[in-house]
Structures are given as structure tokens and as C-alpha cells.
């Protein structure tokens, strides 16, 4: 009887936590919401961001601070660079030689032959295609993370860590607007180009996590973590009509704070230019995460990112995620040195941390994150990880090679808005 009551009490407790989190999510104040733009490592991206229950390394800073408690020694990670390029930009860049060749061909023709030349038509077709493109480039550079177990309080090991991220980000979105003229040129003139640029220098995260073995039904270990981030972001959001670009002087006057006689000859000039053309926003956010180990092969998680946040005159989107991760081979008593397998799933707030509200599909896939990871030779110095996933309904996959402390990999990552290719190098000590 007592055990039944205890169990009921535990379910009520969990229900209360979930309800509170749900309440926090749904009662968001009507203030400006800025995208969080968390640093996403190659591993979580390839796993479709189904990482909250899986988190057991320094990627925990951006997914579930409770995951830090898995660190059993001082761990340092340096990511010199991780670049992310939208698939549209990759496609356009791949065709750049053709474009240059067409332009070269056209420039050599007499003016009266330019019009009917196939290269001119290819140029028009290219413009038509460009109107549906998302051209984006993101580069995270010198990302430094470290974490270490510190001490024990009442048989509860405490782990803490710090993460510093630097990032440059640029995005051009083309959207059709106005009347549907038959002429591509006419139809394009009033199309809108939205562009965003952001530069984050020394965005700092700190997290503390604790692990506690418990004697509860279905729960063996509980991990809890609290993360704090301080964001230092210079950003610019603007939009213009294509036709405005045909008037360079006015365009520069209205959209760029850059004098005609201004020279850019040093790094300081570049910084000045960035300063003049961006707004600086600083703010903080607090994440709360829980992980529960139910067996040696099954783990669940509950995370609220940006539970509390304040940035500029707004806040980051508050996202609630529940997740599950499992090790099927361990569950089947088939663990071996050749292959390790992990699967994970998560349900999260539909628009995600970057508040991609306008791209939601309004279906169950908006909430969905799935991932599977197969690591070959998991206990050897040379390892190969193959991953696949589903992020908000869009496919992800990745390949990573690890040799001792060096890791290099590539991933394909789809989010609500567009698809990306990403690659990077990481040093794990």
C-alpha cells in the first residue's frame, strides 16, 4: 500500500513538473522573441537534435546541462571551426563557373546579339530560380568547452563546465511579392530580399550538474543540470526590393551605413563598419535539464531551454523538450567491441530554439526529433560514427571520423526553414 502511494506520489510530482513547464511555455508574454542560435555540434545535428536524453558530453551545454554529469574527468574541447552552408548556397556556388562563363560569353558579343543568345536566357532562368533560394552561411569558430567533476555533496557528485562560442552568420532569403507578371524580370523587380547578419563574440555559457543514485521504481539515477548563457550579439535584419538594388547610391544611403569615401584597409576598419551597421544586443538565458536512467540501456530527459531569459527588449523562445534514448545492443545483451548503437527520440516545442514559427508545417512532425547512431570500433583510438535523424520532419545524416583526440566530420541537416551542409573539426582532450 505504501509503495503504491509512493508511486502515485512520484507520478504526481512528475506531472507537476511537466505541467509547470508547459505553463511556462504557453504563457509566454507578448514581447519580442529573438532566435537563440545555439551552437549545434555535428553529432546532435546529425541525430536530428534528438539529443536531450543522449547528452553525455560537452554538447550538453546547448541541449541538456544535466548531461555534463556524465563527465568523469577533466575534459577540454576545442572546435577551431565548424561551418554551415545552406544547400541552396552550395547549389548556387556549384553553378558559379557556368554563370561566369555565360557572363564572359555575353560580354564578348555585339550588343544586338546579346538578347537572343542562349546565355542571356540562362541568366534569366537563373534569376527565376534564385527567387526561391535561402542563401545562408554560418561559421562557428574557436568554440572552447571544458568541464570537470568538482566535488561531492551528500553522495552527490557535482560537475561544472564553461563554454565560449564565437560566430559569424549571414542569411539572404528571397521571397516573391507583388503581381505575377509573365516576364520573369518584371515579376522579380519587386521581390523582397530579407537579410540577416549576426556576429557573436564570446558568448559564454556556464553549467553545473549533479548526479544522484535513487531507489525509485523504474529510476536508478537522476541527473539535474542548470545552465546559464550570456549572449553578446551584433545583428542586423533588413529587407529591400530587388529594384532598389538598381539604384546603388540610394540603396547604399538607405541600407548601408558606409560612406562613399570610407576606406576599408585594416581589421579595425572592418570592426568599425560592423559597428556602424549593426545593433548590439546582450542578454542572458537560463536552461534547466533533467535526465533519468531507468535501466542501463534506457534514459529519459526533460529540458526547458531559456526558462528565464532577457535579451535587449525581448527574450529567447522558451522551449520544452522531453526525450528518450536507448542502447539496443546493451538491451539485447549483444554489446561488443565492433559496433555500438544508440537511438534517441524527442518531442519539443514546435518552432524550436530559433523561433522558426513562420516555417511550421502545423503537423506532428513540427514536434519531432529522431536519431540513430552507429559507432564502429567504439573502444578503439580510430572510430567511425554514422548517424541519421529526423529534425522537425526533415532528414539529417552525418559521418564522423575520430582518431585519438581529433574528430572531423560532415553532416546534412534539415530544419524547418532550409537544408544545410555542415562540417568541422574538433579536438577532444
Amino acid at each position, binding site marked *: 500500500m505504501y509503495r503504491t502511494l509512493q508511486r502515485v506520489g512520484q507520478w504526481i510530482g512528475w506531472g507537476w513538473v511537466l505541467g509547470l513547464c508547459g505553463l511556462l511555455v504557453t504563457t509566454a508574454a507578448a514581447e519580442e522573441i529573438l532566435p537563440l542560435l545555439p551552437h549545434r555540434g555535428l553529432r546532435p545535428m546529425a541525430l536530428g537534435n534528438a539529443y536531450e536524453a543522449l547528452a553525455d558530453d560537452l554538447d550538453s551545454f546547448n541541449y541538456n546541462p544535466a548531461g555534463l554529469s556524465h563527465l568523469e574527468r577533466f575534459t577540454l574541447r576545442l572546435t577551431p571551426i565548424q561551418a554551415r552552408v545552406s544547400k541552396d548556397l552550395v547549389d548556387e556556388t556549384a553553378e558559379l563557373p557556368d554563370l561566369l562563363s555565360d557572363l564572359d560569353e555575353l560580354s564578348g558579343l555585339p550588343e544586338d546579339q546579346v538578347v537572343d543568345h542562349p546565355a542571356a536566357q540562362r541568366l534569366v532562368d537563373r534569376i527565376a530560380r534564385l527567387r526561391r533560394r535561402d542563401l545562408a552561411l554560418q561559421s562557428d569558430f574557436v568554440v572552447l568547452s571544458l568541464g570537470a567533476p568538482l566535488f561531492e555533496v551528500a553522495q552527490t557528485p557535482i560537475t561544472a563546465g564553461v563554454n565560449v562560442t564565437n560566430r559569424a552568420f549571414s542569411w539572404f532569403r528571397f521571397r516573391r511579392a507583388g503581381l*505575377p507578371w509573365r516576364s520573369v524580370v518584371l515579376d522579380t523587380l519587386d521581390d523582397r530580399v530579407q537579410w540577416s547578419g549576426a556576429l557573436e563574440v564570446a558568448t559564454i555559457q556556464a553549467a553545473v550538474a549533479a548526479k544522484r543514485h535513487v531507489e525509485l521504481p523504474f529510476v536508478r539515477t537522476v541527473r539535474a543540470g542548470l545552465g546559464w548563457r550570456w549572449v553578446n550579439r551584433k545583428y542586423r535584419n533588413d529587407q529591400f526590393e530587388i529594384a532598389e538594388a*538598381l539604384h546603388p547610391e540610394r540603396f547604399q544611403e538607405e541600407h548601408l551605413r558606409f560612406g562613399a569615401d570610407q576606406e576599408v584597409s585594416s581589421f579595425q576598419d572592418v570592426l568599425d563598419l560592423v559597428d556602424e551597421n549593426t545593433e548590439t544586443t546582450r542578454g542572458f538565458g537560463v536552461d534547466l535539464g533533467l535526465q533519468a536512467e531507468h535501466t542501463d540501456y534506457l534514459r529519459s530527459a526533460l529540458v526547458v531551454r531559456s526558462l528565464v531569459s532577457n535579451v535587449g527588449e525581448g527574450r529567447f523562445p522558451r522551449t520544452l523538450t522531453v526525450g528518450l534514448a536507448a542502447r539496443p545492443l546493451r538491451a539485447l545483451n549483444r554489446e561488443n567491441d565492433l559496433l555500438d548503437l544508440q537511438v534517441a527520440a524527442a518531442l519539443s516545442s514546435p518552432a524550436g530554439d530559433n523561433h522558426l514559427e513562420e516555417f511550421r508545417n502545423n503537423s506532428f512532425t513540427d514536434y519531432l526529433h529522431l536519431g540513430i547512431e552507429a559507432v564502429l570500433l567504439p573502444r578503439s583510438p580510430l572510430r567511425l560514427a554514422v548517424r541519421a535523424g529526423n529534425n522537425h520532419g526533415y532528414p539529417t545524416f552525418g559521418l564522423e571520423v575520430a582518431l585519438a583526440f581529433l574528430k572531423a566530420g560532415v553532416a546534412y541537416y534539415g530544419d524547418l526553414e532550409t537544408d544545410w551542409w555542415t562540417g568541422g573539426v574538433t579536438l577532444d582532450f
Partner: protein
Amino acid sequence: MKRPLIFLSGTLLLLSSLFGCAERPSAEEEEEIPASLQQASQALLTAETAMERADVQLDLDKIGSLRSLKEELPAPEALTSPRVQQELQTAIDSFYEVFEATGTSLDPIELYTLEEPLFIDTLEAPLFQEDGQELIEEFAEELGLSRTDEAMIHFYLSYLYTLNAVGILAEAGGELYEIRYSPEADSANVYDFVFKQNVEGLRPREVLALFNDQQRQAMVNAIRLLTGGTVRAEEVLPQLDEALYQRSALFHLNEAAERLGEVAPDLKAAIDELRDSVDRELIEELIRQLESWGFVIETLPADLVERILQEQ
């Protein structure tokens, strides 16, 4: 036994779900026209189709078409058939429907009444005044008619009015006059009004007597289409559907130039070429000679009168 089965099926289920089932909007869906522009889009389609049927469409996707607009203007003979004239009217009507559907209102033409011959200074106050334009533009913006859309509709209307006028004049010319066509890039004017008979030394009344009723009607109608003003040949006044021909070639040309000047100077240069070919060469040339041919100018756009007087 249960545990392996659960995990095997769970993993298989997960694997099968990995490949995304969400789809981004297709190109066609992204091209979807907002509801506020549906009616206007339909009217635009009708206008473009009518121009195509009349074979007077401009292929602006050909790079340089705007720059070589003079060479794109059709020959007068191609504009005289009732079928082509009907298509031009349909296109004009449909372009006005675009304005109407998007709540875009047009300024009135500022006309001056001339009680004496043009070459004597008789400027009077404008017959109409502008009203409420700012509010209307704001409304148009809400519905989504962009500056370039508005400018290009004005441009096409100007083009259609001009072709309509040239067609009417060319059709009635007979043995008296012709509309000479010189689309070459180096020619000063594309359409030139040229008498086939020698009218030099004739007095105005004698020249007018050479015009039959159809030719007189054609001239006064053409001047109305080109300028919006009223010219009379004795008792013959313009007879045009006022509901259809709401403004004039000159009016729409100025509106297009003003808007494109704000947005894209390169495109405005193309408009200026049309202005040079049609406005300066055809319209001004006709206006300068009408009185010497016995026509009476009653009203003309203020800016045209002003310019002609300044050039005297």
C-alpha cells in the same frame, strides 16, 4: 524474450521514421498569390493575354529590351485592324481593373483651357485639383501593389494608349497622310505624321478641308488618347468611351517615369526613350501644327502647354 522484441521493433520503427515526412512548400506553392492580389492578378493576366493576341507584347526578359524599346514598337499597319484595336482596349481596361482591385486611384490630368490659340499666353487655373492621394497610396501599399508594379502598369498603359492612337490615325490616313514608321535605333522618332499631299502655303481652313470626317475624328480622338486634351475640328469633338480611356499616354508616361525614377534610374532611361519618341516627337510635333491645319485646341495638359510655351 519480450525485451529483444520490444527493442528490435522500436529500433526498426525509429529507422523507418528517420527519413523526413515533412515537406517544404513547392515552387508553385511559394508562387501562390496572396488573396488581396487575386483579382488584380487575374486582370493582369487578361491584359497580358490581350497584348499577346494583338501581337504587341514586349519581351522584357530579353536583356536590353527596355533599352531598345524604340525597336520594339510595332508598325502602324499592324495596329489598324478592328481586332487589334479591340485587344488594345481590352488590355487597357484590364490594367485599369488592376488599379481598381488594389485600391490604387489615379491623379486627375491637370488640364488648361485655351481660349486663344496656343501660341498666345492664355494659361488658366487647372480644371481639376489633386485630392487625398496620400491616403490612396497608403491603401494601395496595404493591398500589395508595389512601386514597380504600379510603375510598370503605368508604362504599359502609356504604351497601349500610344499604339491605340497610332492605329486610329494610320487607319484613317487614306490618300491624305500616313504614319511613317522608323524603328531604327538612330532615328529621332518612330512614328511620324506625314502628309501625302503638299499642304505648304495653304491656309488652316484649306488644310482642314482636306480632312474628311473620318480623318478629323481620328485626329481629335488620337490627340485625346495621347494627351488627354480636347481638340476640335469645326464641330467634330473626341468621341471615345470615357469610362475606358480614363487618362492618356502622356499622363501614364509621366507617372511611370516618376515612379521608376524613384526606384530604378536604369529603367527610367528606357521610359525616357519612349517619352522622346512619342511625347517629344509625335505629340509635340502634332500639337505645334494642329492650329495651322485648322484644328482648335480647347484643352491640353498643363505641363505640355508650359513646355511648349517655354520652348517657343
